[in-house]
């Protein structure tokens, strides 16, 4: 009885929970998840259609209206330069989601590939790889970000690099333990026996079966990346003025004016909290649906 690649593929397909069905189950079983999913969609829409939704240009300085309280003219008030906070928050969603998605996606994808590869090859390669990952895990994140910014400068691109680097080993670790389990399943040996290349096995057979932890890591990373970007901006290492970004809005002026113009500090902080809240909840519900046994952090 010859085992064909089609057989293997179908076995694998059977092992995977179909994502479309999972989505429906999600809504039914997890109302919280559905709500957060809605929030996520709203945020994405806000980011995409920002120029249409925002009432003002986010970098336009209204010098006559500096630090105004929320009013009918400026719904969330203005900041120290006289810029409309609502518009800046809407455009800030763009920055947050752009950076968040980039970091999360790149981080988890690279982590996925590396983790699976490491588990697949095992032996010395795995040992070495683990040590390298340990180094990056142990290395203080902020210092790495500081160094990246000091070397390459500030700006969205470098922030993405700075945030993605520590995310990769975290994903790789989780994926690796998952992949190690899969590796024991006979069909991988069978595939090797059939002469499939390493790359094909890794990418087409093992990786898709690590989708569950991958997706979970992805959504976790989204929230973490947004928070990290906010922290870096707070330290002055993120995107720079006058780009609208939530973390940046909390830096500098916010603390100074916190008493006389608290809205400058409150609304961006709320935006960050809500965004991360939504992504985390969504990720939780996703995880509960996809793999109830996987109660990782």
């Amino acid at each position, binding site marked *: 009885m010859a085992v064909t690649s089609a057989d293997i593929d179908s076995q694998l397909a059977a092992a995977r929970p179909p994502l479309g069905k999972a989505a429906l189950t999600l809504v039914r079983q997890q109302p919280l998840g559905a709500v957060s999913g809605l929030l996520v969609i709203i945020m994405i829409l806000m980011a995409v259609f920002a120029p249409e939704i925002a009432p003002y240009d986010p*970098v336009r300085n209204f010098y006559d209206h500096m630090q105004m309280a929320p009013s009918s003219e400026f719904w969330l008030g203005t900041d120290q330069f006289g810029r409309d906070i609502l518009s800046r928050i809407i455009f800030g969603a763009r920055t947050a989601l752009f950076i968040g998605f980039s970091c999360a996606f790149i981080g988890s994808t690279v982590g996925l590939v590396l983790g699976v590869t490491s588990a697949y090859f095992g032996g010395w390669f795995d040992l070495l790889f683990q040590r390298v990952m340990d180094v990056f895990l142990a290395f203080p994140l902020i210092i790495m970000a500081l160094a990246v910014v000091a070397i390459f400068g500030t700006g969205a691109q470098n922030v993405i690099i700075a945030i993605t680097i520590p995310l990769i080993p975290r994903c790789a670790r989780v994926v690796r333990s998952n992949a190690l389990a899969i590796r024991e399943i006979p069909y991988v040996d069978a595939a090797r026996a059939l002469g499939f290349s390493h790359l094909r096995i890794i990418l087409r057979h093992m990786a898709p079966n690590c989708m569950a932890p991958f997706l979970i890591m992805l959504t976790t990373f989204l929230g973490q990346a947004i928070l990290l970007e906010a922290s870096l901006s707070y330290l002055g290492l993120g995107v*720079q*003025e006058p780009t609208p970004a939530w973390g940046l809005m909390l830096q500098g002026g916010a603390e100074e004016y916190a008493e*006389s113009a608290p809205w400058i500090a409150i609304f961006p902080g709320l935006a960050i909290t809500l965004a991360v809240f939504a992504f985390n909840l969504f990720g939780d519900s996703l995880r509960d649906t996809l793999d109830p046994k996987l109660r990782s952090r």
Partner: protein
Amino acid sequence: MMKGNRLKALCAVFAGLAVGIGATGPAAAETPKHGGILKYVVPAEPPSFDGHIETTFALIHPVRPFYSVLIKVNPENPSSTTDFVCDVCVGKVPEPTDGGKTYTFKIRDDVYFHSGEKMTAQDVLATYQKIIFPPAGEPSARKAFFVMVDSVTAPDDHTVVFKLKYPSGAFIPALAVPFNWIYQKAKLDKDIHWYETHIDGSGAFIFEKREAGAYISGKKDPRYYLKGRPYLDGFQAIFAKKQALRVQAIRGDRAAIEFRGFPPKARDDLVRALGNKITVEESDWNCVLIMTVNHKHKPFDDVRVRRALTLAVDRWGGSKYLSKIAIVKTVGGIAFPGSPLAATKEELQQLAGYWPDLQKSRAEARRLLKEAGVDLNKTYYFNNRAVDQPYKIVGTWLIDQWKQVGLKFEQHVFPTGPFYAELRKKKDYDVSLDFNCQSVVNPLVDVSKFISEDRSGNNYGNYIDRDVDAAFDKMNRTADPAEQRKYMREMEKLTLDTHANAFITLWWYRIIPHRSYVKGWKVSPSHYLNQALDNVWLDK
């Protein structure tokens, strides 16, 4: 001869000062009380303790009280640019002899170092040898201030003689720079680096403790040569990097004063919260942010494009609204606005970037850009320093101003180290912010920032301009104030307008709100001056 507006401007400055002085009470009317520890906050920590090497106020604020200097700006009149008094010298600051080329100082007989030994002229000599003629490899931050000095000698234990190569009005102000601390010859002979990591002076306070990153504290020196001083029992200089926290510290009475300066918002918050428990002192500040244009980068090698940069900026309007949120305020030229060499409002309004009609100015800018064929779709590189007040605020404002004439800039903000590396070496930037902050107000020397690159030592714009150099030299070789003023105007016009080399943004404005029980300290145009703290007392 003072013209109408100039007089008004000066009156405004002095009126502002009078408010400050009046609020603390004239010194004669109140008797200083003895005792108490003064706690104050300092925004940064100094790298080393050697005043001859460092240039940061972060060293002055916590460490100056431990040392004496030869002469200093009169603490009772710290905004003066000509009123100097003796510290360890005897009597009044001597007039020069020998056609203005020799200065002879008599040293006091009752000055003791805190480690016990008496100060002699040999110590003063060794100190100034280190400052003016440092041994090879030993840095001295103010060597260039003393280029006019030919030699320093100490004929006996109580006399120090400075011989100059030519008479110069810049010598006495250079001597009065508050970094020229008197060190002990014996210690310098043993190890010239000793003072970088140790503190042993002859000032009003003895070094008590340093907790790394936290504070430096000092206690009163009972043997201080000015009897009855200091009034304080001691002080504690606490390092607090975040401005919001420094303001809160004063509000929560964890500290009484901060000696650098707060933006207007902080002052308003403190006054609103504490009423008459807070006294506010204000002054023009001898600090300014400069737009340094990279002359070697196209299209900024074209003088038309550079003129457009300055024509786009609304300085008069900017002064109004930026002064509400930042520590900048006064519109001025290259000379400190409070000095006699500064331009009047009418003179300023002749220069590009200072025209009273903003629309006309910006239209001209757009025209120049078009004529020079500048690519308006390109985003240019603006180099800035990662400090909020006022760098990032001014930077954000400038980008907005340039946007109004169609020029797009992206701000690249770096921490201090990489910022200077970029400014000095890499030269990737198109325009950068830079600053010019001096301690003693000495416009003759202060404007050396704008002379050619090969002569200036701190001009980073990549340009040579011999006309500016000529005006600078002529200005420094004459002792006649009217002549000096003429050459200053010439230099100003060339730099800011005709050759458009580098531009002034706005001069800073110093606002010091402090607890009302702190008395005896007067604000000055420099956050480096009047920090010996021997005249401060607490009314508690």
